[in-house]
């Protein structure tokens, strides 16, 4: 949303253009709806009540969904959108504000820099990269949470990254199907 806003302002400086023949509006609207719904569901999963013993194995679904749309979205998510999503997650989870925002923005940036290569990888290779992505994400979130004295032991971070990587193929299957059904390419 942030980058669309910036584009919107940048257009003021350009000479007026004829309107495009095919209206891209409904497709983009559909994409935004699917994006928001998927992010919302991931947010609900991230706060689903689990006992602390099981909570360690919770996949970082919101991070995975953001990475998926950065890699596969028709209009790519920018760093700004990821940052806003992260901040919402922080506010909802009642952690130190800014932790998930920083981590998701960073992961989105790495995704933006490498999506051309990552798209060509096989699912196993992608899952390995997701392990690294979520690992970086967890590292930064944990660092910020540590400001309030809630730093988790290192094995929690590794477990979370591994579970998230294991969930990646499933998530790709589901979201590909959604993309196919709603023709979001």
């Amino acid at each position, binding site marked *: 949303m942030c980058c669309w806003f910036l584009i919107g302002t940048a257009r003021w400086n350009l000479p007026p253009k004829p309107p495009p023949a095919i209206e891209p509006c409904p497709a983009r609207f559909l994409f935004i709806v699917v994006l928001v719904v998927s992010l919302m569901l991931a947010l609900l999963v991230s706060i689903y009540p689990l006992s602390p013993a099981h909570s360690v194995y919770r996949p970082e679904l919101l991070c995975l969904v953001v990475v998926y749309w950065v890699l596969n979205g028709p209009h790519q998510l920018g760093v700004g959108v990821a940052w806003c999503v992260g901040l919402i997650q922080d506010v909802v989870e009642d952690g130190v504000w*800014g932790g998930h925002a920083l981590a998701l923005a960073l992961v989105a940036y790495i995704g933006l820099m490498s999506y051309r290569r990552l798209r060509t990888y096989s699912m196993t290779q992608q899952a390995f990269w997701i392990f690294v992505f979520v690992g970086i994400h967890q590292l930064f979130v944990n660092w910020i949470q540590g400001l309030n004295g809630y730093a988790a032991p290192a094995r929690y971070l590794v477990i979370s990254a591994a579970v998230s990587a294991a969930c990646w193929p499933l998530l790709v299957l589901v979201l590909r199907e959604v993309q196919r059904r709603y023709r979001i390419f």
Partner: protein
Amino acid sequence: MFAKGPSPGARLAVLALLALAIALIYSKTDWFDGVRQRVSDFTIPLYWVTDIPGQVGRWSEDRLASKVSLQEENKALRTEVLVLKRKLQQMASLTAENTRLRQLLNSADTIEDRVLVAELIGVSPDPMKHKVMINRGAVDGVYIGQPVVDAYGLVGQVVEVAKHTGRVLLITDSSHALPVQVNRNGIRLVAEGRGNLSELQLRFVSSTMDIQEGRSAGHLRPRAAFSAGLSRGVGGKGQSRSGQTFCDCDGKTHGGIEPQPACAAGF
């Protein structure tokens, strides 16, 4: 379309600095406290939504319970009532005696008995953070610092109050410390949470203190102003090394503090 505007790298730098600034302000100052109170009115409905599967589960358990299990439960409850009634009689005489003794001491410290029954609607998603959400808020008379008890004793205290909901910090949270007193001999200690639901840590226990492992550590009585008179059973497991004046003891909380569907905020 990405040729316009600042590059992703520049955006990342700015946003990362902004996030760091927010994090520092959040953790080091109280500037965000007002916003947090107001925001939790919007975020807690999400916890309501995620609690729906659990509610459906509990509801169906109620509806689909078999006759035999109901009868068994009924029988167990009747037995429990008998035991509790006997204890209540003992309690009444002890309370009267306690009041007389307090009058002798001219002490104004009386134990009130006002209890508000609350239900648990959410658990903090972070496994390191032991906070729960209850369905009672400022409207119901919940206030910050109010002790929260379950059937076994003190569970935590209210740290945040929204209009219709409240957040409770459990005594096992790693940021919580609680002054306690051993019931048996009156020794005073500090029990700290360690981020583990079944453990508390007693800090600065001198090696000459009369604390024994297991049942003899018996009941530790919280002594904080917010919770005088409540108890939480703790069986201790000392780790003393010779040559040290102070050691830290691990204690097991009685019954373990499990986020249960119902708990009560008292006093």
